[in-house]
């Protein structure tokens, strides 16, 4: 499913966090957002599943389009939007439940009660998230018994279980060790066959490795958005060049 932002301006109270952003994201691709802390990339990401709605005093101008629907239209049900646009957070946030129940949760709350379907989907999702082999014998154990990297893959499995079309990932590997990180990256690479993946990252090598396109944000503006190769080898803007070569930020 493709995503689009049209003339997006976003405010936290009086603070102008996103300035006039236009972007088109292709379906079945991996798009990375990079930029210094506070540049608005996570805010922009969270617009697409309306997580910013949870913050008081925010305000959006412009349109965010998922598929062909402006998701800020009054007729849109936020709960249903979030079953189409899944999210993985910066810190692994499994629920204080068993491994199985964590993955089954999204199904249950969306009205799936058939035990067989739930069992099958949990297994399929854990396999997709490359976690099945590690947890298949302890599905009833608490999710907190897993390592940080496993927990994050569990959260990915949890998001995949409700078969979204889009997967938003907000620095999904920033709290993980290098081995877990590379597992997550491999996973992201696999996922783009079935999903549109958008990932926010502080790690530029990561963006270079996993993404097809990269957007560079600074001070609430989208400075440059292009093929990842182009951004990292020959960016159009000097600011981008400075950032990726580590001259600031």
């Amino acid at each position, binding site marked *: 499913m493709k995503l689009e932002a049209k003339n997006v301006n976003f405010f936290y109270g009086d603070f102008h966090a996103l300035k006039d952003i236009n972007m088109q994201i292709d379906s079945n691709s991996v798009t990375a957002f990079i930029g210094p802390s506070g540049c608005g990339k996570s805010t922009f990401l969270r617009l697409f599943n309306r997580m910013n709605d949870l913050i008081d005093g925010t305000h959006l101008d412009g349109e965010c389009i998922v598929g062909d629907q402006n998701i800020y239209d009054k007729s849109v049900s936020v709960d249903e939007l979030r079953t189409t646009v899944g999210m993985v957070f910066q810190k692994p*946030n499994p629920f204080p439940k068993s491994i199985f129940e964590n993955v089954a*949760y999204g199904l249950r709350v969306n009205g799936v009660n058939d035990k067989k379907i739930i069992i099958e989907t949990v297994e399929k999702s854990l396999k997709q998230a490359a976690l099945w082999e590690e947890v298949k014998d302890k599905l009833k154990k608490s999710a907190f018994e897993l390592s940080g990297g496993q927990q994050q893959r569990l959260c990915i499995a949890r998001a995949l279980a409700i078969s979204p079309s889009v997967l938003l990932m907000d620095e999904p590997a920033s709290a993980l060790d290098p081995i877990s990180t590379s597992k997550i990256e491999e996973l992201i690479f696999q996922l783009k066959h079935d999903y549109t993946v958008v990932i926010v990252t502080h790690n530029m090598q990561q963006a270079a490795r996993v993404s097809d396109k990269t957007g560079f944000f600074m001070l609430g503006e989208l400075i440059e958005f292009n093929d990842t190769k182009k951004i990292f080898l020959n960016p159009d803007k000097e600011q981008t060049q400075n950032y990726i070569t580590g001259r600031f930020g």
Partner: protein
Amino acid sequence: MQHNKFTGKRANQALFFTLFRLMSYLVVGILFCIIGFIVIRGIGVINWEFLTTAPKDGMTKGGIFPAIVGTFYLVIGSMIVAFPIGVMSGIYMNEYATNKHIVRVIRVMTNNLGGIPSIVFGLFGMSLFVNKLHFGDSLLAGSFTLGLLALPLIIRVTEEALKAIPDTYRQGSLALGATKLTTIRKVILPAAFPNVMTGLILSIGRVSGETAPILFTAAAYFLPHLPTSVFDQVMALPYHLYVIATSGTDLEATRPMAYGTAIVLIAIVLIMNLLANVVRRRFSK
């Protein structure tokens, strides 16, 4: 010179540390004094008969069974009244209310409610539940009155318990398309459950020891039988203690009974407090 100055400082420090330490030991000492005093005087009457039979011979003999049962009923009744109201308003305050001023007003009012002397609750309960609503002097009226008393504690504990749940749980659930209500029911409340239970148990401890709220609303001086409906009066441990300590037919003869009653009452409260600790520790590993 230097040397003296330093040692002088150290001596000063040591003096105050000792003082603080003594004061905290003193608190423990006082608790043990009270318990020891009561146990020594009352342990003699504690036996199976004391716990399982009704008072006899002008309360100089027999046991306190009806008072134990009455207190048990009152505790259950007051929790049925207070627990749903308290938990639901706690949920509202922490999960739903967006207007911080309203939350603050509710919180201040809740704390004020908690600060009202318990005899005033008794008076209010008498005029509203006993008279106005025609519950009469009854288990029902007593339960409502004690419920009001327990409400602030339950609200506060619920709010604290919910506040301790990380926001990442809420976000995780909402991001999977769960509604807010589902999130609260399936993720937040189960996670907050141990702490909410702790609050419930603490308020049981509080409620079971209260005399004033049931004085005019539920408590009977003496009943030959156990209550059979919610409109019956009940005997209750704290009130029974008051009665046999002050207005028995033969105060000297009932004195050990009073201490025995006190032991049972203290035991209930202590057990409840310990239980609260156990629950909290067991679930929040």
